[in-house]
């Protein structure tokens, strides 16, 4: 039903003009198959540095699936297959000669449902990824914990109980802990899969503030089905529908001046 042309503007990545990495991440012709099912069809998108890009669309449109491609999270799903390229800086995420672990150092991810390690303390949760990278110096670890918890707006609430098990935090706090944990590996890209969908309005507001604050320092890609949220915290928005990328552009333009009829209907709330 859709004959969507990919609305990525600018030169193709083989052109030299974009090589100065204005774009942190570039997805080229990405398709995802689950067995015979085509979940994401030939999506190309560029993600600029130091800004927030929102992926919106009705549930089942493939936005989460696409987001997971950007961190090779489909590797562990039997029967799934990803085609196309995802460039991060100069390297292809799907280059089979490079283990995804190398890329995951650059990409942090926050999931839909808060998933701190329940048996670990708050402190250990934050430093789990740092320790994997061989950093043992406790001063550095302390600094990272404080910084990341502050960035996630959690520091003031937990500064005195860093040894408390993560499981004792509330849902919203757990999710902010997960953000801190993702930030602790010092990523350049932050992927967020509906990070506030399981949270109450107040916790949601805190998460959105965090995202806005971080937006000047990271390339953030956030999946949301909440259009207000996309308007509130993103600079760019891409609209997906049944596996296709329908339209993308600056958030303001996409919501106020959509080029595609389907996008217009969606942002007006005619379906979803």
């Amino acid at each position, binding site marked *: 039903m859709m004959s969507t042309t990919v609305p990525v503007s600018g030169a193709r990545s083989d052109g030299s003009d974009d090589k100065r990495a204005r774009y942190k991440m570039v997805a080229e012709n990405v398709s995802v198959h689950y067995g015979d099912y085509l979940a994401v069809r030939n999506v190309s998108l560029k993600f600029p540095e130091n800004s927030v890009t929102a992926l919106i669309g009705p549930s089942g449109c493939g936005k989460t699936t696409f987001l997971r491609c950007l*961190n090779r*999270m489909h590797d*562990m799903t*039997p029967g799934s297959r990803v085609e196309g390229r995802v460039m991060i800086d100069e390297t292809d995420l799907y280059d089979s000669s490079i283990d995804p*672990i190398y890329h*995951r*150092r650059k990409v*942090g*991810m926050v*999931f839909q*449902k*808060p*998933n*701190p*390690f*329940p*048996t*670990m303390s708050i402190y250990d949760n934050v430093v*789990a*990824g740092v320790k*994997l*990278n061989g950093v043992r110096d406790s001063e550095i670890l302390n600094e990272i914990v404080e910084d990341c918890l502050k960035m996630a707006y959690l520091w003031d609430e937990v500064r005195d109980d860093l040894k408390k098990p993560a*499981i004792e935090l*509330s*849902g919203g706090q*757990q*999710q902010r802990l*997960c953000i801190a*944990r*993702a930030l602790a*590996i010092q990523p350049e890209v932050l992927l967020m899969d509906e990070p506030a969908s*399981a*949270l109450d309005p107040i916790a949601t507001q805190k998460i959105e503030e965090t995202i806005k604050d971080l937006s000047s320092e990271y390339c953030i890609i956030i999946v949301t089905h909440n259009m207000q949220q996309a308007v509130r915290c993103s600079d760019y928005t891409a609209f997906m529908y049944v596996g296709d990328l329908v339209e993308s552009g600056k958030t303001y333009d996409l919501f106020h001046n959509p080029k595609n009829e389907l996008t217009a209907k969606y942002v007006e709330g005619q379906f979803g």
Partner: protein
Amino acid sequence: MIHSGLLLLQRDHLGGRVAKAGRPPLADKLFKVGTTLAGVYVLAIIAIMVMHLGSESWPIWEEEGVAGFITGTDWNAVEDRESFGALPYILGTLITSAIAMTIALPLSIGIAMFVMIVPKRIGQPMGYLIELLEAVPSVVYGLWGLFVFRIYFRDLVEKPLHDAFGDSIFLFSGTPFGLDVLSASIILAIMIIPTISAVSREVMLAVPHQQKEAAYMLGSTTWEMFKLAVFPYSKAGLIGAAILGLGRAIGETMAVTMLIGNTIGAAAMPQSLFHPSQTMSSIIANEFIEASPASIHMPALIGVGLVLLLVAMLVNIIAHYIVTRMLRVREGAIRN
């Protein structure tokens, strides 16, 4: 759904079985009583069993005293000089089971991990094979252990160990014949691996995939993912799996009977890995038929059986408690 249920009823099952309104459905009452009896049967059996074993072993408790019987090491069935103590067999059971569990636990967790991470077409057949290992009867393990395994094990493992460390480390003292604590423990380990690995696998599968994703997101290798996400989360369940394996080992009879050397009395005290011994179940298997109901020999054996029953139930209750608790928490562990 309801619709399809109705269709099924009409097609296959409806022939005149509808209860007439107002008539007390007698079949229904019978059904309820019957199934309730079947349900309560297990409670009755356990109660009667404990009572029976207790009353039939009464003479030995009277004769030796509870403490005397449990801590005694004599085992003499000769008329007029009867004296019975169960300590060597209690220790034999506990020690062989503990060694077996120590060997089987790491192997089983390794197997469970293997089955989890390799592609299904390798993992599934491997799972089946491990299951078949459990299907082999105890007496066949015993036969193989007695006539095949023991010979190789004695010559290739026990003798070199004894030659190297026999004088210095007490564990390796005693001339190895292959009929001893260690070989019985190894056979036991082989036999409890399927249990421990199946339960370990299940408790590790119960770890929510969000936990695994979190670990991968941080850049873990698969092994690091297990260390970060799986082991901490399933620790209690793995301990439960180990205890469940211990419970199996404690009750195992035939293979142990055929391999442990079957000494009695003080000689059965487990002194080293290469020393023959005896377990609670093996002494019953070996002597029960010859014991005269007229003497206190039979009450002594029944007393051993009672101790075995209580130990096995205790261990299994603990394991059961830990494992079910662990499996119940699975999703609930993360509040939101």
